[in-house]
C-alpha cells in the first residue's frame, strides 16, 4: 500500500501474490542498483547478459518461496491469535476491553510501519523480491486497524453512535484516528491486481501515496491519546521519520 506500484507487470492476469513463478531473479546484478531492479520495468525483467557473472543467482524454489510466504503470513496473524487466546482464557487483565482495543491498535500501527519499511529494506538489502510482501502486510495492518475500530465502536461504545459522533467531533485523537481509517479503506479496497489495472498504474500510485498521510495520522492519534509518558508514541514517530526521511533523501539524491 505504498506508492511504489505493486508490479502489475506485463502479466496482469496472474492473480494472488507474487510467487516464485512470476517473480524475477533475486537482487539484480551488482552493477545495477537494487532500487532500479525493484522498479517495475520490462527492462529489469529480461536477464541482461551485459551484467556478466552477477546475474547467475538461482531462482528460489517454489516450495521455499511458499514457506517464506507462509512464515510472513503467520507472523502477521500471530498477534491476533495470541490476543484471541488471551481473551478466551481471561488473561487480558482487569480491563480486558481496553487491553483489546489498545493491542489491536498498536499492532495495526506496527504493521503499517513494517509496510513502509519494505521498500527501503528491498533497496538497501538489494532484495527486490521483498516487495511482494507489501500487500500482505498492508492488508493485515488494515485488518488490525479495522478490528481496533470495530472493538471501540462495538465493544467499548456498544454501538452508541451518538457518543461515537461526539467523540469524533470533540476528541482530537479520535478525529485523527477516524480520518486515518477512512483514508485507509480505499487503499485496502484497491489492493488487488484488478484494481491496479482498472485504475492505471499512475492513478493507482497517486491514490496509494495516501499512505504517507495515513501513517502520520495514526502516529499522531497515538501521541494525543497518551496522558504523560510520550516515549512510546515518539518511538513510532521516530521510526516513521526515518522511513519517510529515507524516501525524501533518495528523491533529493537522484
Amino acid at each position, binding site marked *: 500500500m505504498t506508492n511504489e506500484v505493486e508490479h502489475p507487470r506485463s502479466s496482469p492476469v496472474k492473480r494472488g501474490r507474487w510467487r516464485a513463478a512470476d517473480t524475477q531473479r533475486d537482487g539484480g546484478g551488482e552493477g545495477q542498483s537494487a532500487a532500479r531492479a525493484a522498479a517495475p520495468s520490462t527492462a529489469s525483467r529480461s536477464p541482461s547478459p551485459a551484467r556478466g557473472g552477477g546475474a547467475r543467482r538461482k531462482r528460489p524454489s517454489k516450495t521455499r518461496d511458499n514457506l517464506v510466504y507462509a512464515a510472513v503470513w503467520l507472523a502477521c496473524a500471530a498477534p491476533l491469535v495470541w490476543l484471541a487466546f488471551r481473551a478466551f482464557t481471561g488473561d487480558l487483565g*482487569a480491563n480486558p476491553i481496553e487491553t483489546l482495543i489498545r493491542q489491536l491498535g498498536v499492532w495495526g500501527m506496527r504493521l503499517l510501519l513494517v509496510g513502509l519499511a519494505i521498500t527501503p529494506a528491498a533497496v538497501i538489502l538489494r532484495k527486490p523480491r521483498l516487495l511482494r510482501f507489501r500487500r500482505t502486510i498492508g492488508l493485515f495492518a488494515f485488518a488490525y486497524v479495522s478490528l481496533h475500530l470495530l472493538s471501540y465502536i462495538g465493544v467499548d461504545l456498544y454501538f452508541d453512535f451518538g457518543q461515537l459522533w*461526539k467523540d469524533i467531533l470533540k476528541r482530537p485523537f479520535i478525529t485523527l484516528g477516524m480520518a486515518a481509517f477512512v483514508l485507509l479503506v480505499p487503499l485496502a479496497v484497491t489492493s488487488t491486481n484488478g484494481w491496479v489495472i482498472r485504475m492505471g498504474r499512475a492513478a493507482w500510485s497517486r491514490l496509494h501515496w495516501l499512505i504517507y498521510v495515513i501513517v502520520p495520522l495514526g502516529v499522531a492519534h497515538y501521541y*494525543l*491519546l497518551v*496522558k504523560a509518558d510520550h516515549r512510546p508514541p515518539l518511538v513510532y514517530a521516530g521510526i516513521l521519520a526515518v522511513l519517510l526521511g529515507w524516501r525524501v533523501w533518495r528523491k533529493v539524491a537522484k
Partner: protein
Amino acid sequence: MLIRHRPDLTDNDVTDRGLYLRRREFIAGAAGLGLAGLGGVASAAPLAFTKGFSTTEKPTPKNDITSYNNFYEFGVDKGDPAQNAGKLKTRPWTVRVDGACEAPRTFDIDELIKNKLEERIYRLRCVEGWSMVIPWVGFPLKDLIAAVKPTSKARFVAFETLMRPSEMTGQRWDVLQWPYREGLRIDEAVHPLTLIAVGLYGETLPNQNGAPLRLVVPWKYGFKSIKSITRISLVERQPPTAWNLSAPREYGFYSNVNPAVDHPRWSQATERRIGEFRRRDTLAFNGYGEWVADLYRGMDLKRNF
C-alpha cells in the same frame, strides 16, 4: 457534618465470612507452593476495624484492585505498579503534618494504624473512564488535621508523596514533576467522607495501592487520592498539584467527578466499572453529591473543573 446513612451492607457482602476466616489457609497454601515470596501476600497484615459509611454496590475483586493501578512512581502502565512496587520499603515511615497549625507533628505509621479504623466501601472513579468499588480501611483525615490544631490561616491542605527514586524507579524519569503533589481545600479535607486509608479488603495496603497510607476522596477523580504520603501541610494558598502542573487544561484543582465536563481525551459521561461489560452513566460527584454538593454552592463547576 453528620452523615445520616446507615451502611446497609453486612459483613458477608465483602468477602464470604467463611472464606475470609480461611484466608490464612490460602496464604499457607500459597507458601507451600513457594509463592509466598511473590510480593504482597507475605507483607499483608490483617487490620482491626469497624464498619463505616459504605456503598451497597458489589466490591471489585481484590485481584483487579491490586493489579490495575495508576501509580506513575512505579511505571506508567497499569500493570507496572504491581510488578515494581515490591521494592518500596514502607517501614520505617513517618508523616509530617505541619504548616498553619499550633501543634505540628510527625506521626509514625504504626501509631496511625492503631487509631480507631473503619471500613468504608467507596466507589473510585478514574479520570480515564473506569471505576471500581473498593473496601478501604482507614480513618477520617479530619482526625489527623484536628490533632495538629489548625489556625485560621489553614485554608488549603497540601499533600506530598515519598520521593525515593532508588525504590520508586518511575521517579528517575520526569514524566511528572516529582514528588507527586495533591491538594484539597480545607473544607474538603475535613469533610467526613475524606479518608486516610491504610488498608483494603481488611488488610494493610499493598504497595501498589499506596502503602502505607494514602488519601481517598471518593467524589473526585482518582488522581486526587494521593498515595504513599510523607507530608501534609496546612497552607494559606491553593497548592500546586502534579497533574495540574503537567496539563492545566486537562486536570483542574478541584477535579470533582462531573459527567457534564468532558476531558479532552475522554467523555466523562459514562464509565466502565471494572468487571462489567457495558458502560454505565457517571454520576455527579461520583454519586456522593448528597453529602458534598454543598461544598461547591455558588461555584461554576465548569470553570472550576
